């Protein structure tokens, strides 16, 4: 009896609530419009917060540079002079006016291509060698001391040797990239593989995964955070090395452009090229880091 009363009371309450819900439907488009506006506000704010401070810094640097380099006996050009002299290089990265008179974008692409080949090879060989060193105690004992010595050799010290071996500048430059980028990849991969939890190894053993399956299904994903740390250091080093290598080997790359500009005293061009190199290096680093976060999304220790 009491329950029945309760029921009718609750249905009664529902009837009363009905117009209220109808009113809500009317206000709905109005309500969605407002949060969207409010949602954009923090986004815009975060963009401002992240963008304004570096812009101010850059403006201040340009200002001080302008003041410092404006004197009559100044040896370096101020920003205004660079803009006047190298405006075409800044605004048109992809112009093409003859085989040596091309935009910096093209030169960067040529350098990037060399880095892509050299770094790609270094990544593949480095991960495989790192896996070997990380997995086998004897490989580590045999190879690790050699790696530790070789990795301290400066990239350019390899160049004469590789020029002698390959007798051509293009493969020599690629080899220098390769030999520069491979050490951090090897060392980080080996550490990552040594840190694979015994549990995962036990699972693999119970499943009787063979070496290839173990490599692709357990080793690489488990060591991925370490591998990507190595790749990120490696790509940074290759970008450092390519500019230096191209200065010596000649050709089309951005490094040779700087050397060429120095020989014909075009200081403004050199400064523009430096900015290009910095920006591209930054982008390369972020791209590898971004790929890393996507690939290693699942590899969290839990």
């Amino acid at each position, binding site marked *: 009896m009491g329950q029945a009363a309760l029921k009718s009371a609750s249905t009664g309450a529902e009837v009363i609530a009905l117009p209220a819900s109808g009113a809500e439907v009317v206000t709905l488009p109005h309500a969605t419009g407002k949060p969207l506006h409010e949602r954009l506000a923090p986004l815009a704010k975060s963009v401002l917060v992240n963008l304004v401070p570096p812009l101010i810094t850059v403006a201040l640097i340009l200002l001080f540079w302008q003041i410092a380099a404006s004197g009559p006996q100044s040896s370096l050009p101020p920003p205004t002079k660079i803009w006047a002299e190298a405006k075409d290089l800044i605004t048109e990265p992809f112009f093409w006016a003859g085989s040596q008179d091309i935009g910096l974008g093209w030169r960067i692409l040529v350098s990037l291509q060399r880095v892509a080949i050299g770094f790609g090879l270094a990544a593949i060989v480095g991960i495989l060698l790192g896996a070997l060193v990380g997995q086998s105690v004897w490989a580590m004992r045999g190879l690790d001391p050699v790696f530790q010595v070789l990795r301290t050799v400066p990239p350019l010290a390899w160049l004469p040797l590789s020029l002698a071996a390959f007798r051509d500048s293009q493969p020599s430059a690629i080899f220098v990239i390769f030999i520069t980028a491979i050490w951090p990849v090897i060392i980080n991969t080996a550490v990552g593989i040594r840190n694979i939890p015994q549990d995962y190894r*036990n699972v693999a*053993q119970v*499943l009787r995964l063979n070496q290839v399956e173990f490599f692709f299904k357990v080793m690489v994903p488990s060591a991925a955070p370490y591998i990507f740390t190595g790749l990120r250091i490696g790509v940074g080093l290759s970008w450092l090395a390519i500019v230096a290598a191209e200065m010596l080997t000649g050709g089309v790359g951005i490094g040779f452009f700087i050397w060429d500009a120095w020989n014909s005293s075009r200081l403004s061009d050199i400064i523009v090229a430096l900015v290009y190199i910095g920006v591209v290096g930054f982008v390369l680093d972020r791209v590898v880091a971004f790929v890393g976060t996507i690939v290693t999304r699942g590899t*969290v220790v839990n």
Partner: protein
Amino acid sequence: MSTPYLKIDHVEKTFQRGAASTNVLKDINLVIDKGEYVSVIGHSGCGKSTLLNIVAGLTPVTEGAVLLEGKEVNAPGPERAVVFQNHSLLPWLSVYDNVALAVNKVFGRVKSKSERHDWIMHNLDLVQMGHAKDKRPAEISGGMKQRVGIARGLAMEPKILLLDEPFGALDALTRAHLQDSIMQIHAALGNTMIMITHDVDEAVLLSDRIVMMTNGPSARIGEVLDVRLERPRKRLDLVSDRTYIAAREAVLKFLYERHRFVEAA
């Protein structure tokens, strides 16, 4: 006499570290029948996990042998699936893919792709995890992870399922849920199971036989207790059941009267 299903024959294990050697297990003999649920209980450090790893093939024996259907076990394999204490799911794979890794490896040649898919889903449903098949291990609770671990073990269709303190890291309520699930699965599939535990109630509730181990070093099998309780067993009915209370008492007496863990502090 027919060959026993699983025979642990005079197994002895000594760990060697440099000049020091520790005798962990001494003269372990045990015969387990098909479909039996056997628990191994003992104080921590008594070598019960080592015993399980020896049966799994993950740890080599120093002396003696483990025989499964008359064949010596000396390497790990999917016919002796292990449910690890800390679930050991691969964190970069989804729940489905974790089970699929095992199923594809074990049945890759004998089952078609759709059969394997059905088998994966069947095992996930068996542990009530079918709904979370696309989740990653980090996104599900500890109890759910262990359910998936059990599904992975079952999906290999092992001759014997080895459970290494499977519910040790779980809270009491979740543990009870999973114990009920394991009982249902055992009743439905009739698997042979060996479970390592340090929980007396869990051992009595689930097992046909309880193997009680003495303290290490040189741990032996102290006593084997038959739990003569009808199945299916109901947790609540057992609380006042005489056989249950007697079995519980026997295990407790063994652990805390005759083989007190002196070093525990």
